[in-house]
């Protein structure tokens, strides 16, 4: 991956755009943006974006590799699909944002301690274990992601919430021990491992 990290990009030349096309989910759409800004204005968390999607696309075309991949902007995507619904050019913007986030994380360029990036990792690990998400463990992992002390604090702050959920039988303390699972967990893990290998090989081949 190091060769990818140090890839030279020249301003307003195609090198970074080509890299995105090859390695980022739906990246081949980036060149089709016409800078209307409708995605930027449609994002419910718009205020939280340092760079709007349309601006990220321009940055990619301008060759701003470092700034794009280390940005936390795409981690603000709530997957609401407003941008996709409205984009006049039909860009699958939500997916491109997911793709950029994933690619940045893969290269180790994603901002450290980005909460959604962390949550996403926790979620993935959680689901990989049993093939289904264990909500209780997922919640706890999120609370404790910044260490034990912070975890206790978070858990206390959300204590009422947890009690409410338990009372409504929408959370089950027993889930902590085992919990729901698919039968063929090992098969699933094997399958995903294979998929990851194929994807890694493809990206490696592109660099």
């Amino acid at each position, binding site marked *: 991956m190091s060769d990818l990290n140090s890839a030279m990009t020249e*301003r307003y*030349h195609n090198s970074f*755009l*080509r890299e995105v096309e090859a390695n980022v989910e739906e990246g081949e759409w980036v*060149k*089709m943006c*016409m800078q209307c800004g409708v995605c930027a204005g449609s994002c419910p968390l718009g205020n939280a974006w340092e760079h709007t999607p349309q*601006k990220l696309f321009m940055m990619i075309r301008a060759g701003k590799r470092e700034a794009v991949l280390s940005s936390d902007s795409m981690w603000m995507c709530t997957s609401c699909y407003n941008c996709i619904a409205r984009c006049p050019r039909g860009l699958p913007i939500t997916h491109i944002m997911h793709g950029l986030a994933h690619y940045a994380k893969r290269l180790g360029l994603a901002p450290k301690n980005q909460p959604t990036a962390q949550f996403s990792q926790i979620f993935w690990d959680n689901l990989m274990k049993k093939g289904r998400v264990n909500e209780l463990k997922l919640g706890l992992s999120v609370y404790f992601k910044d260490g034990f002390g912070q975890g206790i604090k978070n858990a206390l702050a959300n204590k009422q919430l947890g009690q409410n959920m338990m009372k409504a039988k929408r959370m089950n303390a027993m889930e902590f021990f085992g919990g729901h699972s698919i039968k063929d967990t090992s098969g699933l893990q094997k399958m995903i491992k294979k998929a990851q290998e194929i994807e890694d090989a493809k990206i490696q081949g592109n660099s």
Partner: protein
Amino acid sequence: MSDEKKFAGYICTGCGIGERLDSSQLEMIATREGKMQSCKQHAMLCSSEGVQMIRDDIGSEGASHIMIAACSRRAKVEAFNFPEVAMTRANLREGVIWVRPDAPEHQETTQEMADDYIRMACAELRSLKLPHASGEQSLNKTILVVGGGITGMTAALESAAAGYPVHIVEKQGALGGQAADYAKAIPTRSPYKEPRDTGVAEMIAAIEANGLITVHLNSTVAKTAGAPGRFNVDIATESGAVSNETFGAIIQATGFKLYDPSNLPQYGYSSSPDIVTNAELEKLVKAADGGPIKRPSDGKEVKAVAFVQNVGQSSSEEGQLPYHSGIGDLIAIKQAMYFKDRNNDCDTTILFNNLRTPGAAGEDFYRAGQEKMITFSKGQVSEVVPGDSLEVKFQDLILDEETSMQADLVVLDVGMMPNSGPDPYAVPIVIDEKAEAASETPRAPTVTVDSILNLDYRQGSDLPHLKNGFTDSHFICFPYETRRTGIYAAGPLRRPMDMRQAQDDAAGAAMKAIQAAENAGKGMAAHPRAGDLSFPSFRMDGCTQCKRCTVECPFGAINEDEKGYPMFNESRCRRCGTCMGACPVRVISFENYSVESVNQQIKNVEVPEEFDEKPRILVLACENDAYPALDQAGMNGVEINPWARVIPVRCLGSVSLSWITDSLNSGYDGIVLMGCAKGDDYQCHFVRGSAMAHERMDKVGDTLSSLNLEPERVVVYEVAITDIERAPKLINDMAETVEKIGLSPFKF
């Protein structure tokens, strides 16, 4: 039909006319005062029976002059269509009963209005002749196309396809024009994704194979004289030989030149051979002959190219173009594709300000460019720094930062400038009264460029410009109406355009040229009085050679002979009557429209004596806009003061000052003139008519003061066809003015 005049009047009593007005009194006025030999009433004159009655009178009774008192001359035109006789119409419906309240106290004045309109229509009719073409016209159907580029070649092929012989005069040694140097063209057929062949070679071959088309290469037009149907043109070849040909109509398709970016040092055009214009790139690509595109300085293959858009265009700065070629971005996309199609790894960046890729074709081509990975950036270029690798410095307007990029080649998008010849009105033509003797030869405007048409016209050698050198029409609705009848501009000399538009435009200009030639052959006027056979004639013995008519004709239709007498050219004339209005000695007239025909209407209005306290207001309204506005006022029931008597005129430019003085002398209390908008955004259908009238009326103050009359009694307004409320108000305002300042002392 015998030459004997027989006057017949018809009064319609339908649409409430019979209920509102005393029609027997109208009939009596028509016969006794109006001298109609017969006058019939009909309950619905426009019905087939009513029309048949008139037709029978024309056929069996020999009626040669008919007066129809019914609705407005704008209504029921198809029913009251008797081209074989002279006809006038008294507007009793829109002009009288619809603008007056239906109440007993208004009955008397409303009837007086109607009475007067009958008198006026009868008086006008007596002074009319049925127009006949002069007989001077001839039919020559050959079309001259000046310029052998895409536009000219298309005009020639389109005309020939309709069966008309064509001559092309081309300055260069080959046909093809600028496009002959292009590698490819912007796509003109869906899916609008790839540059296409220019088609120049095919067009040249088609012309060479076409027996109806004659090509004069290395040739220019040395002189153009005559008129539609009989243009007499000297074609000069480089060798000096001159041939003379006669043409029915002319299409000027002399194309464009490109803006020279040398004056804009920031783009470094003069400082590096690798900074080229978009036209120069075409040659470079053509020279590459399908191989890699190499840069001029060292022949190195271009690996990165920057397109700097909007160079010297759309700018309010001195020395730059205030307009835009409109197609520069499409050209840049096409040219970037030259590089991408040869080598997809070549970096192509287009730095634009507003990406102009309009229409279906434009937007499709833009997307096609993006698909090929052309980089588009909204960027304001501040400097191109020469060097082995060129540095383009710019403000990225989206990323909001000063930045720069490197390129092997920089292409400047320069604008198209019309190659239109000198503007005849670059310096206004004025008549210097005092230096009349000195102005024996017409004053030519200062010319900085060579003439193209070398028109032997009183008003300059070439087509008048509209703006920035473009010879485009001023009229949105009538894009081909140049001010030189029978000569039509086509292609980028009218406005910047691409090849598809230029080809459509060439077809349009060919249409108009063919039409002009055909109609000139029949003695029929061109737009906007299409088909009009009337034609100005003048009485030489009364003419003082003042040249007002030759100078004021908005169409440059009138030449002067050696003695300074006007030489009218029937098929150049548009029948607006501006010459008639210009003539101080009233020697110019049409058979169906003359100083006399209006004067008779003015004189036959009954001007009540002073103690009747019934003023009279004369309204001279342009038939194209003001008169229809008054008609619509009638339809809307807007009131018009009963003192007003409205006379439609062909154009305010045709208004003779004598009408003003005569009506004041005969006791009219106020005069309202209504013409179209003048000035830069004029709406006058005859271009300068309304403006001329305004200028002339500026001087009417002298007349008024010599008569000891208040200046407020004569007003001139610009009135639009939409002034449905305002036009009546202007008349009503005059009634108030008269009430304020009192009646005219010139009553008998």
